[in-house]
């Protein structure tokens, strides 16, 4: 089991946009981490920490150099590596869903990926139906709707459906919750968790907020200024709440609350994650229980 190469791996990954021009911009300085099959990893960091560049590297959407990015142990930048096949295994949902919606009509757009991959029409139709239903967009209602006429949250779901229809083992989401209202957030979180459970996906979620990521992932990689600051299980990373706050990372509400309450109860444990845990500890201290 442990001999199996990780599904995604970055080794001393560095990336400079427009390298060799006066506009060169060093986005990633030195990032190494790997993701095992079935893991759910959050990549968290402030803006300009290099998150999106890391995401793009997973599907070889950059001018990569050899020896830095690996899929199942294979160097994706090696000459002759089948990039199209890689992109059928690693799907990305980008920050702006509009950029990845290709067709005008919802059904046609979700069908785009499978069709391009040469999947027969009947199977494609089934996948479209299944994917839209899985994202709470009933197929008969949404199949013929115009993409431009949908709300932002719905467009994001269509984008995710289009990617789910590819049945990729790895799903990468870049800021999936950006711009959603609390209810849209909750709904999408529920849908994503169910999807990841049902399909045993390897999940990578990028966010500036640990609040959302903590509900989807069990491991956190913290990036700052193009480097890995922390990497570990969610609870362990959350113990460094002060450091995270210093990096401008939004903490989950219970963690943030506990940080404040520690002024009154200095002995509150460092690894509280949920409201229930925090409540129990507080009641305990107040002697109510």
């Amino acid at each position, binding site marked *: 089991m442990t001999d199996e190469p990780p599904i995604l791996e970055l080794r001393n990954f560095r990336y400079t*946009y427009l390298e060799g*021009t006066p506009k060169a911009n060093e986005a990633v300085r030195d990032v190494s981490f790997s993701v095992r099959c079935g893991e759910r990893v959050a990549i968290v960091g402030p803006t300009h920490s290099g998150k999106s560049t890391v995401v793009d590297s997973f599907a070889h959407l950059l001018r990569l150099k050899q020896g830095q990015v690996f899929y199942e142990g294979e160097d994706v930048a090696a000459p002759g590596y089948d990039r*199209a096949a890689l992109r059928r295994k690693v799907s990305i949902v980008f920050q702006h869903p509009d950029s990845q919606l290709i067709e005008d009509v919802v059904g046609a757009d979700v069908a785009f990926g499978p069709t391009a991959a040469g999947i027969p029409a009947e199977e494609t139709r089934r996948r479209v139906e299944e994917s839209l239903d899985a994202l709470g967009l009933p197929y008969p209602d949404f199949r013929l709707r115009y993409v431009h006429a949908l709300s932002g949250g719905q467009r994001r779901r269509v984008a995710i459906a289009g990617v789910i229809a590819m049945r990729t083992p790895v799903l990468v989401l870049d800021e999936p919750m950006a711009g959603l209202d609390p209810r849209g957030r909750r709904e999408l979180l529920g849908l994503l968790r169910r999807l990841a459970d049902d399909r045993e996906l390897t999940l990578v979620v990028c966010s500036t907020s640990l609040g959302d990521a903590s509900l989807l992932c069990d491991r956190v990689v913290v990036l700052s200024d193009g480097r890995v600051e922390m990497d570990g299980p969610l609870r362990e990373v959350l113990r460094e709440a002060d450091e995270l706050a210093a990096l401008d990372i939004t903490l989950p509400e219970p963690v943030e609350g506990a940080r404040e309450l520690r002024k009154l109860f200095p002995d509150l444990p460092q690894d509280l994650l949920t409201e229930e845990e925090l409540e129990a500890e507080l009641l305990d201290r107040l002697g109510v229980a």
Partner: protein
Amino acid sequence: MFELQRNVVFGQFVDTGSVIHRIDPRIKLVATFVMLVASFLIDDFLGFAVALALLAVIQIVCRIPVGYFLRGSGFFLGFLVFVLAFQVLFYPGEVPESDYLWRWGILSVSTEGIRAAGILGLRVVFLYYVTTMLLLTTSLVDLTNGLELIFGPLQRLKVPVNELVLVFVIAIKFVPIFIEEVERLARAQTARGVPFDEGGAIKRARRLGRLLVPIFIGGFARADVLTTAMNTRCYRGGRYRTKFRQMNARPSDWLILALVVAWMVIAWLV
């Protein structure tokens, strides 16, 4: 495709803080205009040799890497060579029989044709270099203010100078934004299975079509947002606006202008 910006230098601004960057934008604009006029007056190789020497000086002083400039101009220069080849082959002027080097039907190569194409090519390169260099060394704010001040007097004649300058500057400003947009779309569509980084030239060109519709829609949306933003901030024409940064042409700026004028006159007269 993923780093298209590498290949387009036109419309970019690269701040190296050189002497040329710091010249008063009005002086730079006038100097550019003088050079544009001169490029139409100069009519022989010797004249262009003198004029091009000035470009070499500018290139050295401005500290923008030559390699960056050339790579960003590859497409333009390739297109120019293509056009000039036609100019030579279909040269329409009167040519004495002894000047023909090669002839086949209506196609011909003559010394006269090569000379004309050479002058035309130099002229276009000169124009391209001067305008691109103006944009590379002048920020859009400076460019706007400079143009407004130069053409300001025309406002008395009811010419909408401010609006025209604004439209011109926004158009230029949108070039790099559009390029970024194309990059973003190309990446996202590649991720979904449209391989922008594979296939021959024709296949690649055909895939570009897929980008056009979203780019246009995005462009209109952007223009709409910009208009709303300007309206909500009560933007109105330039006559009523005052500037936070006043422009002051220093004596050295005037000296540079005089130098450019003199250099161009010499190039014209030799």
